């Protein structure tokens, strides 16, 4: 499999770019997830089971 990926007759750029894009994308989502606010997560995951209780926002 890896030999085929190495010998692409000029097409390597597509493969490498796309893999890079995916890695960057994955890392960004990963970092975001680590930093995510725990309270927000609790509110979000409770949405389907507590649909009759309205969340109160601090708004006007």
């Amino acid at each position, binding site marked *: 499999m890896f030999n085929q990926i190495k010998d692409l007759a000029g097409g390597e750029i597509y493969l490498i770019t*796309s893999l890079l894009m995916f890695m960057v994308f994955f890392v960004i989502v990963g970092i*975001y997830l680590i930093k995510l606010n725990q309270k927000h997560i609790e509110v*979000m995951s*409770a949405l*389907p089971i507590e649909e009759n209780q309205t969340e109160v926002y601090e*708004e006007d």
Partner: protein
Amino acid sequence: MQLEKFTYDNKIVRNFGIATLVWGVIGMTVGLLIAMQLFKPAMNLGSQYTTFGRIRPLHTNAVIFAFVGNAIFMGVYYSLQRLLKARMFSDVLSKIHFWGWQLIIISAVITLPLGFTTSHEYAELEWPIDIAITLIWVVFGVNMFGTIIKRRERHLYVAIWFYIATFVTIAVLHIVNSFELPISFMKSYYVYAGVQDALVQWWYGHNAVAFFLTTPYLGMMYYFLPKMAGRPVYSYKLSILHFWSLIFIYIWAGPHHLLYTSLPGWAQSLGVAFSIMLIAPSWGGMINGLLTLRGAWDKVREDVTLKFMVVALTAYGMATFEGPLLSLKQINGVAHFTDWIVAHVHVGALGWNGFLTFGVLYWLIPRIYKTELYSKKLAGFHFWIGTLGILFYAVPMYWAGFTQGLMWKEFTPEGLLKYPNFLATTLQIIPMHVLRSIGGALYLIGVIAMTYNLAKTMLSAKLVANEPAEAMPLSKIIVDASPADKAWHRVLERKPMKFMVFSLIIILIGGMVEMMPTFTIQSNVPTIASVKPYSALELQGRDLYIREGCVNCHSQTVRPFRSETERYGEYSKAGEFVYDHPFLWGSKRTGPDLHRVGGKYSNAWHFNHLMDPTSMSPGSIMPPYPWLVEQKLDTSTTASKIRAMQTLGVPYDVDYDQQANNDLKIQADKIALDLKQNNIKVKSDREIVAIIAYLQRLGTDIKANKEPIPSNQ
């Protein structure tokens, strides 16, 4: 701020639910019928309208777009309203969506048996229906986004992201895979040809599985499973990671359907690499679902809806583990074109889609009727007979797939094919096909029991058509703008349009990178000088081949294996397909590959074989095609077909459209004369003559070429 009172529209949910049940029974019954045709061809009822090639697409379209499609809309319309604390945007649009979708299905039920097909798998419907699908899909989108805009819940729950990704990706897939040049009311040619057409089709085909059979169901799983279990989803973080990586990776994996074909090697490798990566997000979803039930397994013992959900998630896990394995070239070399793929697909379809749908139906119908399920015992019976049905379906199909895949490749010590006659490998697996149909019948009995159970439930109570609810309205200005609130995902969770655009960009990347080079770089599809356009008669014959759905059982692509070049001849080259609008490589070999069949047999052999396959191949399970002799070839379309091909870049001479029917007649007379010399009397204007002309042409361009073809072409 005051609580607002409003109602949820349960009637539309109920209607989609009933449609799911009705089309489920119909689609699966057709499935059972075609399964039986594979060991008893007479089950085609002696009619062209119920023969395998025409109604196999009817089965796939009915179960995918009618059964699963209606189930998706049922689940979305129920959960969306409640997650957003708002009634659907417009009752009128809901109704148009419902009836429009049912009309599209009915038009498929009428046109597919009549032989109106584009031949692209899971996209067989002809151009006028494609337009109708687009319009109804837009109606669905407007209704969904309208509801999202008027919502009373600021944040969009993970289920809704899956619904948005489904909407936007299916729209893109459907439009790109429907670029057809119409030549009459129900006939068109794809703009793409050969390898490019194959790439577009399997980019579509694979992602139809991803974004019609998977993402909306994951959305439904993220809503209904926590509801059924009475606890929140195991990990919300995992759902975010799972969602974005799933939609990003899925879109790339299409080329694994074209391994060892003449698709450029780099595109095949890309498909393999991303298919293997796909196991991570797929299992992320399965694990998140199963772990949601942690500490609630006692409920699973008692609650039949949860039992269905557990089997559904397990089947999803198995199918998504097997998918990446099947995309490994070594495994694919054996599995592709065999019943192994049919088994793989049905673990997903019967287990994941079927069982999740059943779980949701059993949970949801009693709720919108404010009553209890008519019979829990009958639902329990459905669960067990359904599970047995899946086992009786899948195990024989795996067995058949391994057996046939290995038999095709087996050589004697002398270096000859052990089973040179393809039919020997077919006859070997007939008992497995009988067992498979028993499995299918068991599964169908379960579905009929469910339909009865739910009908009784619905008849015993009154639908709560407008369910009262209340919620606080959303204010326009958000005062709380803490740094955490500005985080990109929290912003996306509040901005549905931005969310949609972002998902669109994510899914476009994969498709573009794969398709652009194949479409723009000339060297990716090398031309071969000896490959010429089809003659007028061959072109008409090719359209009959498409009409009869021959592609459902016969591939037209010889892979570069010794076992295939020995059996069929020279392996297929990209340059041989440049005039094929559409490509007809197929995905299953119930019968042998036909790419090199041209010149292999006499015209008389083909005639006798089409009239009664068992006369030439004793024991053959191919149905006879007597109507090809009874029906006159419609030559009134020849000129417009030639002109359409010219528009698409096929190099016929200028004004050839005027002369095409003369050429057609000369070639047809020649074939009829040859048949006459072999004591077969048939008029030259019959359809069978055209289809013989096409079969005799297949793969001969290269045979005629004395020059050796370089290996890279």
